[in-house]
């Protein structure tokens, strides 16, 4: 069933016929997958549908009109920028409209006050280059440089550079949000003026509804404008070098350099991170999954497997790297100072520097999402959590143990590697991320189960988790965090979207997924309400279990 003719015409009147379509071929372009983040999993199969139509507004006024029409005609809609975040950012119910924001590429820069004022269609690649040109830099999240910067900042936004730069939600300044009912709220300094340079207030900070650690997947409105804070960097922009796809940034090592240290034990590795934080040096400091080294070396999938399968649990158990980026923000003399401090720390931690290229392949400019699924075609970060370094270290180990004991295969073998961990904000926080890979041609039910099992493990072990809100069943995590954060989240949802027009059935989509997916039923051991607290109309539009 399509969107009614009357409603479609109303939508068409907003953007003109050029920027709205229900052509089945175009709709296929908005299908979740076939590769990438969470591709081929049960959630994608069970929860996503093709859109009924797609519309591309050019500005906030058009977005508001579209949303109001959707409310008038009860057309469910989902905001969509670059669609990296896999199936969760795609349509979940029949007759749904995608509001594609990619035309909204407004972009201005305040060099003196170090922020960019952008629309949701602006991607990181151009933003970071402009930042470099102005002597600034920001974080490109794992989604990659082709991601919408706004979308990424609403749900992610960290990288090894977060050692210095810190948490993403602090970089969100004046922001304009079209609420699910079509009302517009401007936050921070935009609230009372057209100047976006400041993020807070007045009074209580409404940025509380923009995200909650890892975002709401667009179920609480559409951000149409955001000022994004950038941080001062060195004043000479790093120079691109190489031929695609083997490109990188050449680094002037007097001002910026990566150094890899090999240390004898994991304890030394962790100690080095604590000490780097305490000494307040460094622009990045990280221990990434070991198989990323194989990805970096390989030119293709086959070569990756050739390299990776030479490893073993024994070889990984004794291999401990700390990768550090030093930045002489002020001068070469600062670089000398930081090198001397780092050398002191590494001597205490028995670290030996390894040969490191004078270039950056990933974190400054590119991130690396394309390479991330090179090996199997699909992956998901089953956890990426910011807490203490204390939690980060234990967390990855527990994930690796569970994976090895019960879930490899279907998951890709990583020989017990606990994944990625590092310190954030000069050691005030730690980070851990655990990525899993699978072959889409095989039975992936084990992947779905592992994802849910880790959520239960987090609860059991008192771990904080990024996978709250719509990322896991809300009625599983809700009572266990806060407690009962889910009830407050649902109150906010119902206040601003009483008819659940905006991206239904998020934030209860994962609850519905486990109800529909038979292979998940034996895992449901939490209290599930007889009827989910959503308007009844959503049940008629969603797929039957």
């Amino acid at each position: 069933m399509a969107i009614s003719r009357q409603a479609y015409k109303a939508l068409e009147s907003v953007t003109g016929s050029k920027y709205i379509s229900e052509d089945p071929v175009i709709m296929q372009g908005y299908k979740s997958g076939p590769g990438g983040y969470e591709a081929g999993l049960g959630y994608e199969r069970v929860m996503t549908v093709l859109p009924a139509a797609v519309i591309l507004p050019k500005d906030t006024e058009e977005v508001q009109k579209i949303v109001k029409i959707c409310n008038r005609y009860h057309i469910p809609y989902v905001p969509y920028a670059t669609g990296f975040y896999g199936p969760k950012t795609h349509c979940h119910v029949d007759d749904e409209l995608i509001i594609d924001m990619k035309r909204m590429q407004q972009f201005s820069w305040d060099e003196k006050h170090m922020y960019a004022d952008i629309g949701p269609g602006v991607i990181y690649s151009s933003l970071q280059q402009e930042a470099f040109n102005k002597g600034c830099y920001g974080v490109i999240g794992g989604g990659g440089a082709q991601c919408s910067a706004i979308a990424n900042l609403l749900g992610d936004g960290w990288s090894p550079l977060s050692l210095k730069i810190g948490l993403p939600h602090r970089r969100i300044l004046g922001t304009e949000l079209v609420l699910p009912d079509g009302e517009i709220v401007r936050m921070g300094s935009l609230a009372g003026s057209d100047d976006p340079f400041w993020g807070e207030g007045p009074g209580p900070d409404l940025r509380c509804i923009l995200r909650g650690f890892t975002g709401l997947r667009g179920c609480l409105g559409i951000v149409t404008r955001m000022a994004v804070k950038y941080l001062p960097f060195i004043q000479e922009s790093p120079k691109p070098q190489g031929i695609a796809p083997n490109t990188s940034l050449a680094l002037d090592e007097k001002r910026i350099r990566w150094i890899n240290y090999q240390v004898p034990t994991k304890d030394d590795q962790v100690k080095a991170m604590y000490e780097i934080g305490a000494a307040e040096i460094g622009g990045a400091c990280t221990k990434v999954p070991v198989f990323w080294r194989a990805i970096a070396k390989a030119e293709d999938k086959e070569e990756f497997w050739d390299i990776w399968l030479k490893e073993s649990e024994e070889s990984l158990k004794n291999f401990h790297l700390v990768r550090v980026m030093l930045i002489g923000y002020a001068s070469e003399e600062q670089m000398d100072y930081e090198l001397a401090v780092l050398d002191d720390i590494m001597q205490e931690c028995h670290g030996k520097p390894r040969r490191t290229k004078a270039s950056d392949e990933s974190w400054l400019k590119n991130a690396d999402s394309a390479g991330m699924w090179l090996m199997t075609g699909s992956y998901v970060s089953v956890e990426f959590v910011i807490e203490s370094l204390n939690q980060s270290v234990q967390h990855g180990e527990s994930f690796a143990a569970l994976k090895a004991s019960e879930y490899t295969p279907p998951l890709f073998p990583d020989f017990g590697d606990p994944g990625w961990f590092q310190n954030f904000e000069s050691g005030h926080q730690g980070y851990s991320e655990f990525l899993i890979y699978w072959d889409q041609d095989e039975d992936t039910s084990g992947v779905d189960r592992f994802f849910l099992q880790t959520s239960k493990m987090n609860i059991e072990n008192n771990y904080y988790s990024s996978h709250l809100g719509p990322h896991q069943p809300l009625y599983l995590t809700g009572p266990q965090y806060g407690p009962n954060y889910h009830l407050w989240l649902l109150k906010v949802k119902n206040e601003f979207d009483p008819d659940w027009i905006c991206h239904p059935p998020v934030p209860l989509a994962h609850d519905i997924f486990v109800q529909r997916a038979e292979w998940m039923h034996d895992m449901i051991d939490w209290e599930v309400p007889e009827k989910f607290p959503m308007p009844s109309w959503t049940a008629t539009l969603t797929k039957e279990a």
Partner: protein
Amino acid sequence: MSMINELEKLVAKASDKAADLEVYAKDMSMMPAGYADAVVWPESTEEVSAVVKYAYENNIPVVPVSSQTHMYGSTIPKQGGIVIDMKNMNKILEIDLKHKFVRFQPGVTWNQMYEELDKVGARIMMPFTPLGNRSVLSDTLDRCVITNTVYDYGEVTQSLEIVWGDGSVFRSGSGSVHGFAADNTPTHGLYTPSRGVDPSGPGLDFYRIVQGAQGTMGIITWMSAKLELKSQIDKIYFAPIEDLDYANEFLYKIMPRRIGQEIVLLNKVDLATVIADTVEDIPELCAKLPEWTLAIVLSGVKRRPEEKIAYEEHYLTDVINTTFKDISLKPALPGFPGLGRKLLNILKTPWNAPSWKTKPYGAYEDMFFIARPEKASEYVEILSKVVAKHTYPHTMIGAYIQPIEHNRACQIEFTFFYDPANEAEKEEIAAIVYEAGVEMMNNGAQFTRPYGNLVPVIYDRAGGYTATLKRVKGIFDEKNILNPGTLCF
């Protein structure tokens, strides 16, 4: 049964005696007095929750109070009800040097925090001269701007424990994990791997909604906040400033290079008042001081502190020699021997109440906002023009500029000193603040912490924000019992 009898059953101590209520009826501001019907002094989260539940069920306003000095009228009970004074909840629950945070209750004062952290070689980022008897939690939640400008992270707030308007207890951030308790420390055996150091989530950024809320959205019963290790060496430098625009251009140049820790710009009235040993010294100091003084503290931290200070000094010398020859940055301000040590101490420690702002005449009114540094002189000019229309002397106005976030913004604070017995002067100052405030808003000033007679103007101008804020307030405090009459509620 009377309210006080009910309250006595819920908390360790409660009172409805007039003398006790009088304490909360007024503060240092010009706001009119207001009287509560009762005051309680809870000693635990459970007691706070029980009082709020009682108030919720009976539609009684509650006003949370944590500090022992109040300046801006936000804790005056405007519609009666119950004052919840948190001063007996004054424990520092844990100090974790490894993960650089401190978790504490709302009654912990700046003096207490400073002393306890100093013992273990740590410090918390402070605003300029926070009053020693004020609550660290209140000032932090109120987004008082810190003097230290070098850390990219900006704000120090991490996890919170919140009592919402229906009395339910909630933890935000990573302290929200199952099993996290108030005594969640390694020595108590309730230690969770999650230490409460991430402010975000769960699900929503709940901590944002209680920031800047002046007790209207929830009552905080503990907070985790970042701390830093104490610096090993500190050196202070001064530059006399006559041209504010030139000084700001200098700061635009050096601060993005992450040079300096505490950096402040004070006009001669503020600086004289801060450093004067007696009231009588103030006029003489004012006459001798430059129009503005820039103070920059360089600090060496845990490792190789001398080398750190050296590269920062060399950088500053380079910039001054090549681009800012008119900046005379020295370890001492000419004509003021001993000022370095004195101001360094002032910048690094809380101020014992009463505020230095009471020195000249006994009372003061502050006006502060966020702005672009390049516009600072414009705001000074606006104020001069407004003041010129009144009889209040321009020479009595203090001014303080606090750079923020590598100088991409600043807080500008003007202080009007007055005699509290002089009603005409008070009225005149109120008029100046209003007129100048409106004109400054017209020119881009952001009053993000709304107080006093500018509150209605601020919220009128932010119509969409105000409307949305009221909807959110309706969720977390559906009966509007939390500090009603404050902000736009």
